[in-house]
């Protein structure tokens, strides 16, 4: 390790970064801390405010670094915290024989700096590690009256939001009726403008989450063949009607509030005594990183519970601004780890947070989930029965294969039911996949297309995301 606190002080962009980094130096924030002295690297995974951990790697030789967080400060607090731990508690790092793939990826892309490392910046004198360490102790204590005033203001804001969202949903209802009256053919052709307009109104009226969903309708429709789009429009708009009705019935329902206005914070979910907690062995099935029309990037990581009798999934979901640039993946598909997950309360709990990660496990086959002979989309139907407003549903498909139709589009079909159900696949598939028998396939069913995540085959695990 070639860090000292002076170097970290010099590298920090400002005092605030150092203060923030000092709070992250507790080992509980770092489920993984590893080093490779031959490669002169330290790396780790920091559980930040998002669902996905941030991956940080630092070159101890030239102090080059990379963090997957969306911060615009360089180095960010996670990088500084990793350096800080390396300087003060090097024993916290486990020696690793080789660097993981995400570290190798970064090394492959980076350009080595030729300038000497850690030149103190002019403002360095105003930053102090000692001061940052004291920040924790100088937290101010609020008096009871101030707490009361703050809570009253919160209640008022919540009430205002509720009225505003109710008005937004009335406007949405009217907008849906207008689309039916004007014709869905026109809506499909002009969905981009029409959805943008109502989404902007909903944002103004604090139905932010719903606005984001409506903004994505055009791209969901355009992903389908033209003859499928009217049916898809009926499904999309009908689900909005159902969601609006459900919210009006129980506006305080956490799941509905999350889908219509805003989501609860990480801390609120972790503190919620009713939130389901599952400690198990999880496998990372795959990731989806999509830039949305509202300027946010949604980062979904799908996990499979390897210890439950029936397939159980979890979704780690984060949003960050697209302007923060491309972000590396938080996990590598196929990673397995023991962790305690806390699920956001919902009728079909799916979105979750990693509350505690205990350690990595080597990969292997999936357990035998003993698929029934019934409908491969039974899980989707069950989801729709309890939460009909949901769009994407994770499914684990029984033994099958990928086939091509006359247009060259790919379909998944069950091995045991070659003349029955076949599910169309959203994207072009790797041609090699057409020759593999899939013992089990994990995918997302969107109601009209299958988005493949991973599969097990005679050639082992296949990463399809």
């Amino acid at each position, binding site marked *: 390790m070639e860090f000292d606190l002076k170097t970290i002080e010099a590298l920090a962009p400002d005092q605030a970064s150092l203060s923030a980094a000092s709070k992250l130096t507790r080992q509980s924030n770092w489920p993984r801390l590893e080093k490779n002295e031959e490669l002169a690297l330290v790396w780790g995974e920091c559980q930040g405010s998002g669902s996905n951990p941030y991956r940080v790697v630092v070159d101890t030789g030239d102090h080059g670094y990379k963090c997957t967080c969306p911060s615009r400060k360089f180095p960010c607090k996670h990088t500084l915290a990793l350096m800080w731990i390396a300087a003060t508690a090097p024993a916290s790092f486990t020696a690793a024989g080789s660097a993981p793939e995400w570290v190798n990826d970064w090394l*492959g892309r980076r350009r080595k700096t030729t300038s000497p490392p850690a030149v103190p910046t002019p403002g360095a004198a105003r930053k102090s590690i000692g001061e940052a360490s004291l920040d924790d102790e100088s937290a101010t204590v609020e008096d009871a009256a101030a707490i009361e005033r703050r809570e009253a203001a919160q209640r008022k804001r919540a009430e205002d939001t509720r009225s505003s969202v109710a008005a937004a949903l009335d406007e949405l*209802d009217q907008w849906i009726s207008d689309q*039916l009256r004007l014709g869905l*053919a026109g809506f499909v052709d002009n969905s981009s403008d029409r959805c943008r307009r109502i989404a902007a109104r909903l944002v103004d009226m604090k139905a932010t989450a719903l606005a984001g969903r409506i903004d994505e309708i055009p791209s969901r429709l355009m992903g389908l063949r033209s003859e499928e789009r009217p049916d898809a429009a*009926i499904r999309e708009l009908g689900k909005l009607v*159902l969601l609006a009705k459900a919210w009006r019935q129980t506006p305080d329902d956490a799941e509905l509030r999350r889908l219509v206005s805003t989501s609860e914070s990480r801390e609120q979910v972790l503190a919620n005594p009713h939130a389901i907690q599952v400690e198990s062995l999880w496998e990372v099935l795959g990731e989806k990183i999509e830039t949305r029309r509202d300027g946010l990037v949604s980062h979904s990581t799908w996990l499979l519970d390897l210890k439950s009798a029936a397939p159980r999934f979890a979704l780690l979901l984060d949003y960050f601004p697209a302007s923060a640039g491309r972000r590396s993946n938080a996990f590598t598909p196929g990673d397995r780890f023991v962790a305690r997950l806390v699920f956001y309360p919902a009728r079909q709990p799916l979105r979750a947070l990693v509350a505690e990660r205990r350690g990595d496990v080597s990969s292997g086959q999936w357990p035998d989930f003993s698929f029934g002979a019934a409908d491969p989309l039974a899980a989707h139907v069950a989801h729709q029965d309890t939460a009909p407003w949901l769009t994407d549903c994770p499914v684990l498909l029984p033994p099958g294969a990928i*086939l091509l*139709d006359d247009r060259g589009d790919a*379909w998944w079909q069950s091995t045991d039911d070659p003349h029955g159900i076949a599910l169309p696949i959203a994207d072009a598939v790797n041609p090699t996949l057409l020759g593999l028998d899939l013992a089990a396939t994990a995918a997302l069913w969107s109601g009209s297309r299958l988005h493949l995540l991973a599969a097990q085959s005679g050639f082992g695990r296949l990463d399809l995301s």
Partner: protein
Amino acid sequence: MNEIEQTGLATMRDCWITGGTSFELAPATWKEFAAGAGPDERERRLLAIAAQALEIALRPAAPKTLKRRAPLPELALPMLPERLRPLLRAALKHAADARGKSRVVALVASRGFVLHPMDWMPAASDQTSPDVYAPWIDWQASVDGEKHTSREQLTAKNWDEFYPAARRSALADMRRTAPAVARQLIETKGSSEPAEIRLALIALMHFGLGAGDVPFLKSLSADRSGKVRELAGRLLARLGEHGQPGDGGPEEPTAELAAFITEGKSGFIRRRTTYAPAKLKSPAQERRRAELFETCNLVDLAARFGVTETDFIGAWQFGADNNVDILVSRMVAASGSDTAVTHMADTLAAEGGKPAPFVLHLMPRLDSRRQRDLIRLILKDTHYLGVLSLAEGVEAGWLDWADLTNGKTLPALCAAVAGNDEAVKRGADQFLETLGFFATAAVAEKLIGDVVAAGMAPAAPSLGLLRLNASLAGP
């Protein structure tokens, strides 16, 4: 969903597509849910029911003509262990071109493993991958997948049961052990194949080429394809057979080429003949000479000067014109007899220094001892390290530490790594990748240590193939 509901849904759907109210068209049971509300609310309720019906009760209609590919065959070697796949992917990612990737594949195959099909697949037109991949090449080439790759002996009877790559692989093996049997098969079955396949089949005859092949090769002078005729002529030339005799006039290609070569004398006491490229007057003449070197055979050119192939090569003044030297090397590689090829390799290797890299063109025709000797010679000097990346047909994983340290190569490499010249560093990166293919696992590991000590980033991508090589040392 019953039939009435399905019909109702279809008419409602049509109504909504064009615009309007669908309440009157809805099935009676659906109407019950919507009744009692205003017109807009009724439509929204029906829309919600229709959405759920579409979501749950209806499934995409599967086309009747879904096509299933034949299962991807398993290969004869085991798959690369899962823990090494990240290293492999890093090495493949860093390999700049198809040649680089095929070296990664060849190195892994030389250690007894094959790649995972999702990491790499040979193309249908691949003819350079290790033979173990033949079933995958055939799988790539097949569309309907009716045939099966047979592990039986290839015969005229089961010829059609073999895919082209498996057939090619079987014929190559047969040419090494029983060349006459293989020739008879090519002779019997090849004539009915299209020109492209016929050409590939005739090309296989360079394995175990012998005097017994002459009558068949001569019979190909009447082949429909010009390329087949040309290839047969080259193979005959390798056997010392002269091409079609011309009239010997200046228009005859070999005569024209000979006119572009100057015959001279050297030595004071023992006068000996020399051949050197003539000074030409225009680029057009140089282009013409290059074309003639590509099409003429060594045996004919030597005969034109009244000498044997080896005498001609011995008298050629290597070093006078680099470009013409390369052309001569390529002509020898394409049409020289085995004796001429080894003579040229040995002559140039014995001279060492500058001309030696030209022998790289002969590599595919040299035995592995000569290939290794030549590469050792090039490594001893530091001037031509770059050309090593062009060497083809060389085995993987044999270079010892002594080969690398028996000269200035290693110090030069470490100096390049430690220096600040970006162009030299890029050259060093490319050379390290080449060494990643040639080196034994132990050398790969030791070399990584040395270049890292010299200042290279320990995880530099250019060390990717060396790292993979080192990790493939043993179980």
